């Protein structure tokens, strides 16, 4: 008898085969093949389980980022005029000078938030590879972006969570981006959609929660959020968007009182000193040209508005002025 071990026992137990079962080579190969197949299934299952855990994690991160962009607005909008050029003094910056202000604009923030929401919905609803590839591309690109920001614009925040991310990108920010990109790569192997993973077993969810905790520990926004909840910024130091000032102005009694005299929709000059932002409008005072200046408080709440109508002194003809100086 040339059979060995289990096979031999099996053969003897069944009693079906007698000594005539001598094709041990075939039987042995069959047993070995079955073992390899079991190991392969195990590996695939583990990879699929880890990949599945990344799907709700990535969806949660994208939803969180999108919601934060909508709730925590960037403190300032892009200082660009209608032609897209900088209105700040001097030459526009050569590197990133257009991208960074664009990114801080409200429109860009809303667009990015909607895109992130759409990607999160796709991750939750469908296991389509196209959605996973798009998410992976986004997170891989974010690694490059935060790396560039860290080197070229060290003071600029990434804006990942709206104005909460207004501090310069540090090592933790880069590590977080790398981890998310890795998670997105793992999610490529996930067979299930996010909702199905949520309805499934607890293990992928536990893994996702663990990863989320690690990401939270790497996020400086948690500290910023805690700081933000603590105290109100004094009005003289508080970044106040121009849109907020215009909204306050248009809702004020001073504006309603002087609105008939205002000669233009947009102010001629807007500047700020401490707790006040000033807006200068051309106006008519009894048919004569005048300047109408509004002072709008930049406080967090209970903003006040004051107004003054200024009639410029008529210019004195040069000949009269010379005659006066002679006297």
């Amino acid at each position, binding site marked *: 008898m040339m059979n060995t071990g289990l096979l031999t026992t099996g053969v003897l137990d069944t009693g079906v085969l007698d000594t005539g079962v001598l094709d041990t080579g075939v039987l042995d190969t069959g047993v070995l093949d079955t073992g390899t197949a079991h190991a392969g299934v195990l590996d695939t299952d583990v990879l699929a389980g880890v990949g599945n855990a990344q799907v709700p994690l990535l969806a949660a991160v994208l939803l969180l980022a999108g919601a934060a962009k909508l709730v925590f607005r960037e403190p300032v909008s892009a200082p660009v005029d209608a032609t897209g050029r900088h209105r700040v003094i001097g030459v526009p910056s050569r590197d990133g000078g257009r991208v960074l202000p664009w990114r801080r604009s409200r429109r860009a923030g809303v667009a990015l938030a909607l895109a992130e929401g759409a990607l999160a919905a796709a991750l939750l609803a469908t296991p389509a590879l196209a959605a996973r590839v798009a998410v992976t591309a986004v997170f891989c690109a974010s690694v490059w972006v935060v790396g560039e920001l860290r080197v070229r614009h060290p*003071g*600029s925040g990434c804006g990942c969570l709206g104005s909460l991310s207004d501090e310069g990108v540090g090592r933790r920010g880069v590590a977080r981006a790398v981890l998310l990109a890795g998670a997105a790569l793992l999610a490529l192997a996930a067979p299930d959609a996010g909702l199905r993973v949520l309805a499934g077993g607890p293990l992928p969810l536990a893994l996702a929660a663990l990863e989320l905790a690690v990401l939270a520990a790497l996020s400086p926004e948690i500290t910023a959020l805690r700081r933000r909840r*603590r105290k109100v910024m004094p009005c003289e130091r508080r970044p106040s968007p121009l849109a907020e000032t215009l909204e306050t102005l248009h809702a004020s009694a001073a504006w309603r009182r002087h609105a008939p005299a205002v000669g233009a929709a947009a102010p001629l000059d807007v500047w700020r000193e*401490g707790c006040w*932002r000033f807006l200068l409008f051309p106006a008519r005072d009894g048919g004569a040209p005048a300047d109408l200046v509004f*002072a709008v*408080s930049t406080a967090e709440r209970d903003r006040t508005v004051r107004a003054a109508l200024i009639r410029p002194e008529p210019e004195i003809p040069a000949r009269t002025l010379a005659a006066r100086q002679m006297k």
Partner: protein
Amino acid sequence: MKPPRSRGSRRRRDREAALGAPPAPGPGTAGPRRPPQRVLSGVVLDASPHLLVLHTADGERRLAMTGETSVRHGGLSGGLAALTAGCSVVVRQAPQGPAAERLWVEPARIAGTILACGRGTVEVEMGPHRGRATVVVPPAARGPVQVRHPRLEPGFLFDAICVRTPDGPRAVRPGTPQPAHRAGRPAAASRSAPAAELVQGTVTWFGDCVSAPGRGAAYPAVDPEGDAGGCAAAPRGCVPLPYLSLGSEIGVHNECGGHEGTVPVTECGCAAARWCDRCVECGTSPRGRLAELTPEAFVALGGDLEKGCFNAVLRPGAPAPPAGPARRRGWAW
């Protein structure tokens, strides 16, 4: 009332019309109080042992040269040989008379974030409105510069007193008294800290006679909205300062020499906001750059362009906040 001539004076008129005249400033600081020094800046037209002819913004000016006149060029005593036609100078005049007391020839200062370092050169990003510059660090200056900049690496701050040359700025000595830190890591002032009426810190200078002519200041907290003129990505500095605009006026008191004066804000000082260093010219100042002055304004307020800073008290001059509930503290959202 005369029609306002400049944007600053027109804004002042409008502000007083809306809020009323500002109250008289408080007593200020202790110590001597002296007026600004007499200073000129311009381009040399002709120079001789007895006469210096300058082209300034107000036209041609003639200054007497005496045996006491000191000429500084590139950190050294330059003598008359340094005064060639076409070079830019800052001249501090004698307290009385038209004589020149001290001249700085082709002064320049490069401060910002390091982008790249080569063999004897440093490429510096000076802020969105000042662009970039490549500073040559000659072997003679390399040692002192490396003492204050032990990590000449991209991302770290750089500040050097330079001399203008046809090949670009050449470093003479470091501009900061302390080792520079990483640009993105200034110890930002507490979010809830109010801006004081008088702020102590360090005042430095920036640019050169060509890029920063006349008397003005780069203020770290210029509002980025509207026509105020601030930089969009300006960091929050380590000194709590109120937002101002181009054309606003700040009062500067030099604690070392006692000179004081009012300077208009002419530029966004987002580069200064990245620094959190002290000046040690006369005692140790609190941390933080309060303003960067143009070379002429810096010398007028008693500064030495080669030293780079003076301990100062700043009066931002922002109008009073609205009275009542708007000032109260509470939850942010």
